[in-house]
């Protein structure tokens, strides 16, 4: 099974139909384990119980960037390899990524209130993630602005790739501008600074959220493929009606007279 085999939407639908229940099951189990472990994790000596927001906040923040990365790869697939499912993948990912970004901003702001004493601060990491959120919304607007999905796909692909410049800015913003947000503590040179009792639930939650994204993404891709099929069926039907009317302008009268006879 290679990437090229998935180019056939019917085969993709068949494969994901078998895969999705397993993925959904694994997501639920991992989420349950992760949430249980997070609840059992000790309180921080400084932050108290509010540190548990981290177990929701960090996976959301990580996925907000990961989804844009997935969309960038899919955009390369659209522009370079013309993979037929790439634009479906890019389109289906955008609303999911926007949701993760919004949740990261929301949980971060709820965490910031007791810790920093403010819901919002114009700090480098916060601002760059807010820009990421705005770019998700702009991208979704772009998808909706064009009727023809394949043309919308190429316009959106260009914008996605240009917007990918924002990802390293977000990643390194805490190191470049030393503002309120704490510097990287999990993925950094020389190992994590987090204690094991926090790190294990955090990693389980990160994997669970990633699985959640994969599940939602595949389901959304299926919906998008089916939506496109409905659309092309409708267009075929419309063109058939237009064509038959064009062929025999008097057909309606003929039918009417037949009906009368």
């Amino acid at each position: 099974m290679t990437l090229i085999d998935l180019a056939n939407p019917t085969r993709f639908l068949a494969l994901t139909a078998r895969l999705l229940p397993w993925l959904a099951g694994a997501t639920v189990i991992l989420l349950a384990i992760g949430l249980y472990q997070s609840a059992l994790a000790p309180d921080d000596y400084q932050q108290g119980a509010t540190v548990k927001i981290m177990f929701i906040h960090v996976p959301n923040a990580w996925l907000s960037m990961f989804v844009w990365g997935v969309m960038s790869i899919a955009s390369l697939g659209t522009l370079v390899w013309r993979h037929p499912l790439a634009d479906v993948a890019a389109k289906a990912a955008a609303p999911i990524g926007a949701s993760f970004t919004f949740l990261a901003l929301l949980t971060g702001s709820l965490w910031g209130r007791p810790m920093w004493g403010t819901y919002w601060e114009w700090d480098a990491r916060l601002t760059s993630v807010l820009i990421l959120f705005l770019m998700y919304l702009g991208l979704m607007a772009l998808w909706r602005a064009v009727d023809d999905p394949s043309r919308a796909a190429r316009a959106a692909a260009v914008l996605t790739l240009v917007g990918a410049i924002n990802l390293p800015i977000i990643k390194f913003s805490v190191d470049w501008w030393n503002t309120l947000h704490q510097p990287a503590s999990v993925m950094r040179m020389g190992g994590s600074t987090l204690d094991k009792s926090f790190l294990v639930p955090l990693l389980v939650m990160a994997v669970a959220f990633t699985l959640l994204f994969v599940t939602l993404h595949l389901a959304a891709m299926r919906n998008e493929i089916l939506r496109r099929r409905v659309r092309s069926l409708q267009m075929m039907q419309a063109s058939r009606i237009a064509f038959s009317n064009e062929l025999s302008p008097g057909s309606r009268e003929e039918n009417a007279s037949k009906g009368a006879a």
Partner: protein
Amino acid sequence: MTALAALIRRDIRIALRVGGGALIGVLFFLTVVVLMPFAVGPDLALLSRLGPAILWLGALLASLLTLDRLFMADHEDGSLDLITMSRTPLELACAAKALAHWLAAGLPLIVATPVLGLLLNLDMVATGAVALTLLAGTPALTFTGMIGAALAVTLHRGGLLMAVLVLPLSIPVLIFGVAASQAAIVGPMTFGAPFSILCALSLVSLVIGPFAAAASLRHGLD
């Protein structure tokens, strides 16, 4: 080369003539700056502190206002199709058009800056710093904005969408432009560091902009 020079000459000429709209940008810039004292109050000390930020915002909005003319007029009269089909690479043609647009619409903004600086009570050093940062930064605004303009052409009626798509990309330019001019006026940072980042942003957008714009034109117009 002559084709590109002819394209630049033509674009500048169209932009500067009646209905071209390049100089409207300066008028808009003036209007934004004049509106500011009404919004924040006529306190000259406050205005001179906010001055660089006001000038940068005004220039950003003015350059955004003129951007949709970059491809739209050519698309309407069909000359964009000719440019796309000509033997000159589309990337180079896009770069030439953006350069012409910057010469016709961006440069007048920089020339107008000293006059507007007087209105905001900026001293000579501050005005010079803002004009210099605008000179280094506005090419980046034009060349990243060109991507949005190219997308908007392929969309039809995409003007408002273009503003939404382009503005997030212009935030780094705004940050470092204002940071450099503030550094020149009050310190404590040196002027050099943010200014070189600003120049780097312009150079990067000089490379990325034409390719992204040409790609979206090529895909959108078929």
